[in-house]
């Protein structure tokens, strides 16, 4: 097993009121127009363009990959996204579609979105996805074990998943909406990082309680704490319900203010989203043309 060596991790309490007040405050930062383009480009570069539907087909994935590598066919200046995020069954299709473009393939795995199957089944799921060409694996934390207090199982499963990933990067989804508040999210964050997660991620997008800026702040503070204690930088991925440029901007500010500008790269920050990209394209279009656009002027992929 390839678990990282670590000193016992200290964790701290989280106060809801103070956390939410700070997250709100960071939502009111204004950005100058000249920085706006850079911010929107950065947001694009950090997107995990996602399709996680039972109805996904190779055709749908091909279309998504095209969008990922060339978000705006009319404007080559717009950078590609960080990755496409798909189910394991779609990984091979995605891998061939984005080959050579710099866009990575991320796959959910490990009995996503519940994670409630035998650990061997889950690690096999991961190994298959990696074998098919996935660069990044998104798994869910075992909330069942976490909520029943079996923290060592949670830890060991993440460590086993990390081992199954091989060279692929591991993102651990906490599914924050199911953990019961900021305090357990902070603990779960520390646990996932200590077990070897390369990224910690808010949500699956499969339950109504999606990512919130305050939850992101809570996790960013945990990442800061972990880096402070161990020297290892772990990335953060917000997912679920992120649809507007304004939301993306809020997350960027939150990361930059909490973790510093060195976290403002796709290596350490991701936005899991599908419709967000089009909203950003509309905003960029407005910056270029000076007029407001409309949904007919971006492609629905």
């Amino acid at each position: 097993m390839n678990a990282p060596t670590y000193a016992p991790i200290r964790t701290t309490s989280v106060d809801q009121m103070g956390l939410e007040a700070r997250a709100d405050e960071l939502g009111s930062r204004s950005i100058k127009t000249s920085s706006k383009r850079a911010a929107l480009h950065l947001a694009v570069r950090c997107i995990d363009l996602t399709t996680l539907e039972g109805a996904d087909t190779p055709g749908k994935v091909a279309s998504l990959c095209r969008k990922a590598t060339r978000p705006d066919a009319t404007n080559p200046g717009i950078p590609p996204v960080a990755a496409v995020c798909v189910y394991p069954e779609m990984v091979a299709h995605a891998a061939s579609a984005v080959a050579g473009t710099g866009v990575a393939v991320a796959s959910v795995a490990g009995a996503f979105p519940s994670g409630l199957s035998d650990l061997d089944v889950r690690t096999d799921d991961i190994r298959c996805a990696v074998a098919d060409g996935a660069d990044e694996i998104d798994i869910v934390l075992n909330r069942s074990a976490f909520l029943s207090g079996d923290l060592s199982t949670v830890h060991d499963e993440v460590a086993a998943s990390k081992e199954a990933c091989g060279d692929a990067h591991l993102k651990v989804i906490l599914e924050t909406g199911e953990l019961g508040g900021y305090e357990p999210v902070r603990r779960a964050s520390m646990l996932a990082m200590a077990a070897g997660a390369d990224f910690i991620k808010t949500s699956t997008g499969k339950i109504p309680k999606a990512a919130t800026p305050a939850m992101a702040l809570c996790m960013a503070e945990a990442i800061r704490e972990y880096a402070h204690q161990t020297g290892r930088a772990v990335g953060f991925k917000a997912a679920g319900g992120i649809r507007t440029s304004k939301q993306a901007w809020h997350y960027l500010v939150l990361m930059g203010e909490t973790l510093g500008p060195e976290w403002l790269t796709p290596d350490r920050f991701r936005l899991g989203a599908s419709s967000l990209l089009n909203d950003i394209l509309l905003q960029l279009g407005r910056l270029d043309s000076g007029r407001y656009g409309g949904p007919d002027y971006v492609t629905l992929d």
Partner: protein
Amino acid sequence: MGGHLPVNKTFKLFIGGAFPRSESGHTFQLRSDDGRLLANAARASRKDLREAVRAARSAQAGWAGRTAYNRGQVLYRVAEMLDARRDEFVAVLRDGGRSDESARNEVEQAVDRWVWYAGWADKVHQVLGTVNPVAGPFFNFTYPEPTGVVVQAVPDDPPLLGLASRLAPAIVTGNTSVVLAGEAAALVAMSLAEVLTTSDVPGGVVNILTGDRAGLLPWALGHLDVNAVDLSGAPADLPDEALADAAENVKRLVHGDATAASPSVIAQFLEMKTVWHPIGR
């Protein structure tokens, strides 16, 4: 007197639960309305005041730290002991020139006043405190706390009821008091000291200085470890400079009626503390 000479008392001061002589060594005579010598009393000096404030300060946290229920019982005990010595106080008041009826009346009212304030001990918070509906995720509440050490220039008249009406509302919430009794009220005040010392009132909670009230008040007003001064019995000709000196530590100046009975009087010796606590998970 049947050949029996009365044994006159020599009253000392009441400081920290003990009865020391004045460090000044000065005394004055207390005489009845018709000129009989009743007792000698100590004329407190400013150094006695200093000692009394020190005793009051060191007793304050402990007294305030008692439960309200307990303080209520202690005050009620004062009423019991006063009531038990009713005849003695009637005699003292009659020596001051009062009719028997008037004296009995006053003693009864004084007992009532102690009983009444005893009952306030565990109700003040509910009447004067609040829970405040602030516009945010907070549990926010305001409750009274004792001001601390109070110096009280108590009224000369009526001596026993006036003393009860000022002292009881000051100490019931956990303040400690230094009572400055003028010559006219000295005998009553020192007799009350004997009641207090047998009533479970912890030493230092009430301290009584007799003698030159007008001379001691400026020292009290200027004392930086005194939180409030009750001027209800202060002489009208108190020098402006003495009053102004209270500002040196932003002292609370309390004006009041000699015999009023109201939670408003209790409130004059209180601070309001507001606590904000966030509501969250």
